């Protein structure tokens, strides 16, 4: 991990550069202290904390219910999956069950979240590569449709605050489901368009293939999760491994990469979107009617028994975990978020060493971080 210090003659050529926190492609207030030889990276240290607001402390002072809106603000692109991770942890801690219909709604909104997250991440990646915003705008055009769905369901486009332990906040109407089906049906066309624009593009291939290679062993050891892990060829998708919710009932495949480079990470996301569409089609077809909340669940004044629970879900960024310790009082004694964005950053330096500064932004873009979650 420690880089040999350059000799004195070399030191004249070494340039220290601080990328961020105000930089167009650090995806927020992220900073990297980089030592450069020409444009080659000799050392890279991530510096974070500019958006730190001590989310965990805030949640420990609030009731179990009041923490849900705060989870929206972790990874602000995927509030639905954040809600789910937290709700799952509380359900485990308090022994609540979730009705069928709510489980299906959860799957539907989470897969929609995955679609919009992956689409915009690919757009951002291309933006980092200098593509004048075209792929990003196409992605945002489609994301808008998903966000409209979220708005009509939960009342907000990004900060959905939709799931509750024991179910979801409001039921979805038949009209909403048919609207969602329409969006899902149209999404394949968008993916085809996206791939025609990008996947075969020689510049994109040249910029991404063989860049930022993450070896399989390092990926596992460094706790990289999500598309980044699967791009390195590790078959580990929590939707399959844990089959939380009702994921066990759906037929879908887990795409696996071979090289573990930026191109593989990009393709993982594209292919995962296609698989998400399959899940969505099945979920929208099979959704049962029934209650959407566990009647036993008490939202206000929940006092779980003394104990602890760790729950994790496959969020679009990776494994999102929530660790709760209850001391029997109405607010959690310990509330911990396992942020996939932060832990995926561990290997940033390993991936960037020896690459050029132009690759650094691309590699960072391919890791897919959201600073709300990194800094909490």
């Amino acid at each position, binding site marked *: 991990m420690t880089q040999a210090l350059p000799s004195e003659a070399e030191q004249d050529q070494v340039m220290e550069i601080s990328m961020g926190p105000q930089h167009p492609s650090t995806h927020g207030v992220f900073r990297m202290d980089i030592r450069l030889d020409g444009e080659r990276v000799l050392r890279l240290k991530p510096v*974070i*904390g500019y958006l*730190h607001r001590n989310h965990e402390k805030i949640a420990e002072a609030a009731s179990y219910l009041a923490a849900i809106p705060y989870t929206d603000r972790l990874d602000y692109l995927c509030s639905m999956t954040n809600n789910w991770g937290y709700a799952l942890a509380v359900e485990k801690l308090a022994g609540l069950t979730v009705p069928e219909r709510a489980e299906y709604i959860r799957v539907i909104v989470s897969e929609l979240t995955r679609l919009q997250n992956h689409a915009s991440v690919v757009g951002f990646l291309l933006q980092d590569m200098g593509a004048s915003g075209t792929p990003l705008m196409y992605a945002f055009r489609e994301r808008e449709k998903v966000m409209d769905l979220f708005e009509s369901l939960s009342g907000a486009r990004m900060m959905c605050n939709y799931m509750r332990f024991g179910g979801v906040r409001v039921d979805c109407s038949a009209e909403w489901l048919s609207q969602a089906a329409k969006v899902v049906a149209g999404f394949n066309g968008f993916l085809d368009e996206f791939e025609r624009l990008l996947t075969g593009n020689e510049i994109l291939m040249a910029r991404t293939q063989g860049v930022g290679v993450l070896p399989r062993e*390092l990926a*596992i050891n460094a*706790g990289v999760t999500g598309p980044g892990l699967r791009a390195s060829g590790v078959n580990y998708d929590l939707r399959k491994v844990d089959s939380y919710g009702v994921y066990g009932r759906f037929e879908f495949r887990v795409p696996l990469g071979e090289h573990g480079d930026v191109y593989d990470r990009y393709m993982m996301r594209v292919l995962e979107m296609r698989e998400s569409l399959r899940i969505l089609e099945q979920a929208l077809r099979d959704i049962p009617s029934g209650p959407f909340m566990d009647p036993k669940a008490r939202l206000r004044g929940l006092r779980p028994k003394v104990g602890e629970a*760790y729950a994790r879900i496959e969020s679009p960024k990776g*494994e999102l975990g929530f*660790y709760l310790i209850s001391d029997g009082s109405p607010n959690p004694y310990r509330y911990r978020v396992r942020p996939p964005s932060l832990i995926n950053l561990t*290997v940033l330096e390993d991936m960037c060493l020896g690459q050029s500064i132009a690759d650094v932004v691309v590699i960072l873009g391919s890791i897919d971080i959201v600073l709300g979650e990194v800094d909490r």
Partner: protein
Amino acid sequence: MTLEEIRSRLEAFVPGCHAEIVVNGSPSAQNSLLIDRQHGLQAAMYLRDHPELQLDFCSNVTAVDWPDREKAEKIKTKRIVDGVEKEVEETKKTTIPGYLEVVYHLFSIAKKEGPVVLRMHTANRTDEVTLQSLTPVWRSAEFQEREAFDLFGIVFEGHPDLRRILMWEGFTDHPMRKDYVPPPDDDLEILAVSEPGA
């Protein structure tokens, strides 16, 4: 392998290691394994490399602050009263010294199993807050142990790069501790107002 088997194997194969099962009372029933602080690293190595366990993935590393508590309990003591030894029952208030606890959630990607929850305690909350770092075993602990150091003040021995991560260099307190008192809100405003003029 059940937790009990893991515990007995740990004690058998890691010399001197003392492990204890901590029962979790909640419906999640995720029991955990408390390892003594001298053998954390060895135990972790064993757990990772054991072919039947292969806990190659350390998902979550976090710390918990348990401050000093007062506990009232009835105890029987032998005391010499009026020259005769008698058994006396009396209520005694004891202060249970607090400690800082680190929790590791381990999973196995190879076997798709887990979690195995590992815990370690520091000796106290003030001066003996050192624990063995497990970063050499799992790189994923690197940032998370830095975070525990930053927010809880646990010092990890053997960590390659133990610096503050979320708070700034020069910050002295540890905000996630239960007894942390945040500076009053208006401090920020005073700073903002006084700086340009002064």
